């Protein structure tokens, strides 16, 4: 391949951006049932750019598809959609976008874009055919013939200079060949004519009509032949010719004025040149107007996320180093008043730096929400439902990692809402609801959290069905009468609840919601659910803005310091030996507020040599992990810290089997390395 592999990332990124913009335009157009001329232009331009980039990357199928769409929108731009049937155009374009996205995803996974675009290509071509047929024949015929006329005018007159009467200048024959595969030879020939005509008094060429379709082929085969008359030294012509790009060979030979070879046209005076050129200019003026309407959208540069991760790490190190320098400065008797002021300034600058780095990693949710829009559209179409997705707060920014983690849960919830939440039109009508179902997706920030709510106006959850199912599965922990609605609904998040289709028949939900919760918990978030039967369901997801800065409790076992994320900590207690129970297998349990939890001694879990063993001397923390609550036992609690999470060094990650329970590490201001506890691994 001609192109650096690293270009692939840029290609993927940029093409995705373009597709996203395209999709936005399509959605907008679809809701208005038509596309405005600026939108058509924009789509045309996007397809054009994708075509160029794809062909450079040698992704033939993608380039072909982009080309076909470009043709289609070019046609629409000129002739409009005669039968007003935009839906077919939207559908085929949406399918093409899906195809592009699929291929890009493959490329992103380091596999090859091997998808076959033939089907979709045929669909695009069929649409174009339909458009062409639909155009009123008279109109298209007329405009075509007028274009033809224009071209003839141009080719006939533009390059003939007026011969001054009586001038007897020598004739030359110029023959040139272009490099193979340089394409558009006829226009290259035109360029040659443009550049030498100033030096010539008369000029003619073969092939005569450079605008004909066969001109390029003819030039490739026979070369481009120019007969010219000039008073200039042929070296002047030579100099000009030599600047022609992609010129393979050329020859320039003097010939006699009465040579029969010289075309008759060269002797004909012609004044139409200027006029024709003016015509050409006004044409281009129209084109300018169109392109001026393009909206500039690129205000961003793309940065590799790995670089940002690295930057964040380095800034973390700087924060640490700074506090080590400031806290350990040993000045003896020296005057350190200047130092303190400088240190203070350094501190505030570094804080600012940290904020900026964090903000760079923030991305708006719009990309993610866009994906949902696509999903709703596709599913609704497939299921024959009429659903409107209302999106708000898509400009809310969260850390890039958070977006990655949030994607699957959102997909899942929305899929459920479309599939099972929103009823068919007839059912809705019977229930007195508007025919068009509504799902709203909303995001906003509160402090250090982002709240994402997904609500639908569908049939809602059926409490009885959930309870019945939970009873069958033996998941109920307390009497049904004592359970609040919220408790009942949260049953569907339980791992054993159900993944079978039975529940979907009753309530329409419960499919894999435990996975959703797991994913969200993984990033320190939580999900809750509210529903009114017959009215709809609302999911509320709360997630931290960023995954890299975590509030944690610091504690020690022997000389090792640990951090446990505060979200996982329910309480910390000084244990009483009386509360410790040992079961026959030797597993320790602890009674807390009347409940019994298993006790994990971190000293034993991590095989740490030092550390207290006596229950009286240590402390306990009540931890909530995604599937169970338990207690950990350690030496002493140190306090609460905000830490920058760093991944474990790669040489440690290689032996992950022995590292379950450790999620990363953090360096604190005192220079100490702290291991971050992964509570799900204990």
């Amino acid at each position, binding site marked *: 391949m*001609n192109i650096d592999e690293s270009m692939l990332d840029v290609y993927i990124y940029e093409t995705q951006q373009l597709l996203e913009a395209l999709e936005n335009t399509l959605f907008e157009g679809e809701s208005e049932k038509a596309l405005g001329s600026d939108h058509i232009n924009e789509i045309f331009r996007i397809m054009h750019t994708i075509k160029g980039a794809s*062909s450079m990357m040698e992704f033939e199928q993608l380039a072909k598809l982009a*080309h076909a769409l470009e043709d289609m929108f070019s046609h629409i731009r000129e002739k409009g959609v005669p039968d007003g049937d935009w839906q077919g155009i939207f559908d085929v374009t949406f399918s093409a976008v899906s195809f592009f996205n699929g291929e890009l995803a493959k490329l992103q996974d380091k596999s090859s874009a091997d998808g076959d675009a033939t089907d979709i290509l045929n669909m695009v071509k069929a649409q174009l055919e339909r458009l062409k047929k639909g155009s009123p024949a008279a109109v298209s015929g007329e405009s075509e013939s007028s274009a033809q006329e224009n071209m003839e005018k141009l080719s006939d007159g533009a390059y003939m200079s007026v011969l001054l009467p009586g001038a007897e200048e020598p004739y030359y024959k110029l023959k040139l060949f272009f490099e193979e595969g340089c394409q558009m030879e006829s226009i290259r020939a035109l360029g040659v004519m443009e550049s030498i005509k100033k030096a010539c008094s008369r000029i003619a060429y073969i092939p005569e009509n450079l605008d004909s379709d066969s001109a390029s082929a003819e030039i490739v085969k026979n070369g481009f032949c120019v007969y010219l008359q000039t008073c200039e030294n042929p070296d002047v012509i030579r100099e000009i010719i030599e600047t022609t790009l992609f010129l393979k060979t050329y020859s320039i030979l003097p010939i006699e004025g009465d040579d029969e070879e010289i075309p008759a046209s060269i002797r004909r005076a012609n004044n139409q040149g200027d006029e024709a050129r003016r015509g050409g200019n006004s044409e281009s003026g129209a084109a*300018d107007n169109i*392109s001026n309407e*393009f909206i500039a959208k690129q205000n961003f540069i793309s940065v590799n996320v790995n670089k940002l991760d690295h930057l964040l790490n380095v800034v973390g190190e700087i924060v640490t180093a700074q506090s080590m320098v400031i806290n350990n400065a040993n000045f003896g008797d020296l005057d350190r008043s200047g130092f303190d002021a400088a240190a203070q300034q350094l501190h505030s600058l570094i804080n600012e730096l940290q904020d900026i780095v964090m903000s760079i990693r923030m991305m708006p949710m719009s990309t993610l929400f866009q994906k949902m829009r696509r999903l709703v559209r596709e599913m609704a179409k497939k299921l024959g439902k009429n659903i409107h997705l209302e999106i708000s707060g898509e400009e809310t920014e969260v850390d890039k990692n958070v977006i990655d983690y949030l994607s699957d849960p959102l997909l899942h919830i929305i899929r459920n809402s479309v599939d099972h939440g929103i009823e068919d039109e007839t059912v809705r009508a019977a229930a007195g609801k508007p025919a068009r179902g509504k799902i709203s997706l909303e995001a906003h920030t509160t402090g250090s959290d982002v709240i994402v709510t997904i609500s639908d106006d569908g049939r809602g959850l059926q409490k009885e069905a959930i309870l019945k199912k939970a009873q069958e599965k033996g998941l109920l922990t307390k009497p049904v009468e004592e359970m609040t609605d919220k408790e009942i609904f949260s049953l569907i998040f339980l791992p054993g609840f159900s993944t079978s289709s039975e529940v979907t028949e009753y309530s329409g939900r419960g499919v894999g919601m435990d996975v959703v919760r797991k994913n969200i918990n993984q990033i320190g978030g939580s999900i809750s659910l509210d529903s009114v039967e017959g009215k709809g369901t609302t999911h509320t997801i709360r997630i931290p803005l960023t995954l890299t800065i975590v509030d944690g409790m610091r504690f020690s076992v022997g000389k090792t310091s640990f951090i446990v994320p505060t979200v996982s900590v329910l309480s910390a207690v000084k244990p009483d030996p009386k509360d410790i129970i040992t079961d026959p297998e030797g597993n320790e349990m602890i009674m807390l507020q009347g409940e019994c939890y298993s006790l994990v001694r971190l000293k034993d879990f991590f095989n740490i040599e030092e550390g207290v063993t006596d229950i009286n001397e240590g402390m306990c923390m009540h931890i909530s992990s995604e599937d169970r609550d338990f207690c950990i036992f350690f030496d002493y609690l140190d306090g609460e810290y905000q830490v920058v999470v760093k991944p474990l060094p790669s040489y440690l990650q290689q032996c992950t089997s022995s590292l379950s329970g450790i999620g990363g590490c953090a360096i604190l201001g005192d220079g100490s390395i702290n291991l971050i506890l992964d509570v799900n691994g204990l």
Partner: protein
Amino acid sequence: MAKIMIVDDAAFMRITIKNMLKKSSHEVVGEAETGKVAVERYKLLNPDIVTMDITMPEMDGITALKEIIKMDPSAKVIMVSAMGQEAMVREAVINGAKGFIVKPFKEEGIISAIDKLA
């Protein structure tokens, strides 16, 4: 050695051309993502050669070419076009583009084109 300015709305194309030119003796002194920016930067950077995309937002390559030629009739502008843009390229050539290169092109193609004009 010539000073080159690359004009293209797609970062992908700009980087590609830039990478290709790294292997030549020429120096990329600037880039522009729209025709409008290109015209402004041309005044500022006064590059020897410009590679100009045709389809761009805000101001297309043809208009930018005309503007640049108006300011500097000796400007050397190479159009970067794709198949299917014959009419546009034709107009560019008539309006003073020194030549054009058709996507997809190879490293040798663009380097030899620039060598020739430099």
